[in-house]
């Protein structure tokens, strides 16, 4: 992940060294930190924005949603990236600091359910997902779902999850198990979105969840049946935009109080068609359908 900083940093250094001589005094720097899910997009935005508004530099770093939010509360960054909403505890901490966080939805991410390419499963319901992942859930074998793993593969469902402070982990828990739901312990907890997909690719009995942007040709994306429509919905940018896919989460940016000046201009640009085309190009869904 940290390797990703380098091109952005190099660009920033370049931008500063070029622009500094011309008009160093009026240059503004926006500090932007948070979710690793949003890191790639945030860097792409920062790079593109340096050509849109050369007077403004956006410094991007990762560290996780929680890290970004606490930095925003402490006033060390202007913009926090988050792949989940702020928790009650964080809102309380902001209140104690006299900060009123303002939330902006900058895109959507569909969390796809991944299985091995040879797994014949055609769709899965939210209840079944809860039965597999939830504490006390009874689904532990593929045969309980009417699925036989081909080539004599093991019948046991190998649950792949994320480390417990990732925004993806928290969002999947909320969406599938409910706000106070608990995961069944004993899942394989991977340390990155890509690691989940890699493990599922190599393990015939595995099931995992990860951002849609990490899909490859070597794994299968299972259509999810939501309680509302009753029809299986394949995760895609389109189904995330029209909100028919049930496990799509908003990607957020938080500011401390209503943004002003350069930060407000930057957010406006991110939400413009130009900015939204960049998030689409990175494999996430824009906030609205683009032409």
């Amino acid at each position: 992940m940290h390797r990703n900083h380098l091109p952005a940093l190099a660009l920033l250094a370049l931008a500063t060294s070029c622009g500094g001589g011309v008009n160093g005094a009026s240059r503004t720097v926006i500090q932007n930190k948070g979710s690793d899910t949003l890191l790639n997009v945030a860097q792409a935005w920062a790079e593109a924005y340096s050509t849109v508004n050369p007077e403004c530099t956006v410094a991007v770093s990762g560290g996780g949603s929680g890290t970004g939010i606490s930095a925003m509360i402490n006033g060390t960054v202007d913009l926090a990236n988050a792949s989940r909403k702020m928790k009650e505890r964080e809102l309380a901490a902001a209140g104690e600091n006299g900060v009123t966080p303002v939330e902006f939805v900058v895109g959507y991410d569909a969390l796809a359910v991944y299985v091995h390419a040879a797994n014949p499963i055609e769709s899965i319901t939210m209840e079944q997902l809860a039965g597999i992942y939830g504490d006390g859930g009874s689904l532990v074998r593929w045969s309980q779902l009417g699925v036989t793993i081909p080539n004599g593969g093991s019948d046991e469902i190998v649950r792949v999850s994320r480390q417990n402070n990732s925004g993806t982990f928290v969002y999947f828990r909320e969406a599938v198990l409910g706000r106070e739901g608990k995961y069944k312990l004993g899942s394989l907890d991977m340390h990155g979105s890509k690691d989940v997909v890699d493990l599922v690719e190599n393990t015939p009995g595995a099931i995992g969840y990860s951002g849609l942007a990490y899909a490859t040709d070597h794994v299968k994306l299972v259509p999810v049946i939501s309680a509302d429509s009753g029809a299986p919905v394949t995760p895609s940018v389109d189904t995330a935009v029209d909100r028919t896919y049930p496990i799509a989460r908003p990607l957020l940016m938080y500011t401390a109080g209503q943004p002003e000046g350069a930060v407000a201009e930057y957010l406006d640009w991110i939400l413009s068609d130009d900015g939204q085309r960049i998030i689409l190009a990175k494999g996430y869904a824009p906030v609205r359908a683009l032409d």
Partner: protein
Amino acid sequence: MASPGGDRSGPDHLGREWWWDKIAQVLLFGGGISAIVFIIAIFVFIAQQGLGYALVDLDLATYFTSPEWRPTSEPEPVFGALALIVGTASVTGLAMLVSVPFSIGAAIFIGEFATGRTREILKVLVELLAAIPSVVWGFIGLMVMSPLLMDVFDVSVGVSVLNAGLILGLMAAPIMTTIAEDALKAVPDGFREAAEAMGATRWQVIRQVVLPSAKNGLVAAVLLGVGRGFGETMAVLMASGHSINMPTSPLDQVRALTATIAAELGETARGSDHYRVLFSIGILLFLVTFIINLLADMFVRGKKTAR
């Protein structure tokens, strides 16, 4: 702190040599006490971050008896480290089962049987084995051992206690071999000669004379191996499956204490409960390795006083 240069009198009292002496003295003194300074600094840091929390706010009964590690659960997180402790213990235990016979055997061969080039080459190879970075061992566990174990045992996941134990055993073996060999070498040749003079065979010499007199050193070697296994992070993180689980068979996935810190600390808000609990795990690890090293040291000392 009387320096050899300081005693000198006469015109070159403040000459170049005197200054070199002083500089060398200060540098050596600094180097000598640095280990103490660092160990104290580390302990103070860990204690300051986690000890107060561990003693006051942390429910120690839950911590040591509950296998439920849910540090980010809403609304109430649960900090039960039992599964993590059992995970570390099972992996380390299996690693010792694998590596103790191997490394004692290797030490006996290198120390008592091998001669000349064979001995030198073996020693270099063992030391080279100790120099392999742990992430490379983890990689071997993930990419080589895992498919192998899946094939051999017909299981769906190849990373497990067995995988991590084998990898950790291979990692701990070189250190144990080197220390065990030192212990064997410390047995005076006179012992061997006396036994041989009384008609003992080579095997009898080793079994009844060398091994018993090197006993304490060998125990120290094993204990240091255990300490190594307990503290290893990267390879265990990669090869154990990183899954909160009370293992019932060597093919189950587990999660180690060290791996939990490595995986979670980076994205934990500083100063939060979760952050402090991770530091309390650090304190636990520190205490255990401290006790193991102390025991090893006592055994080495025991050997010296016994003679």
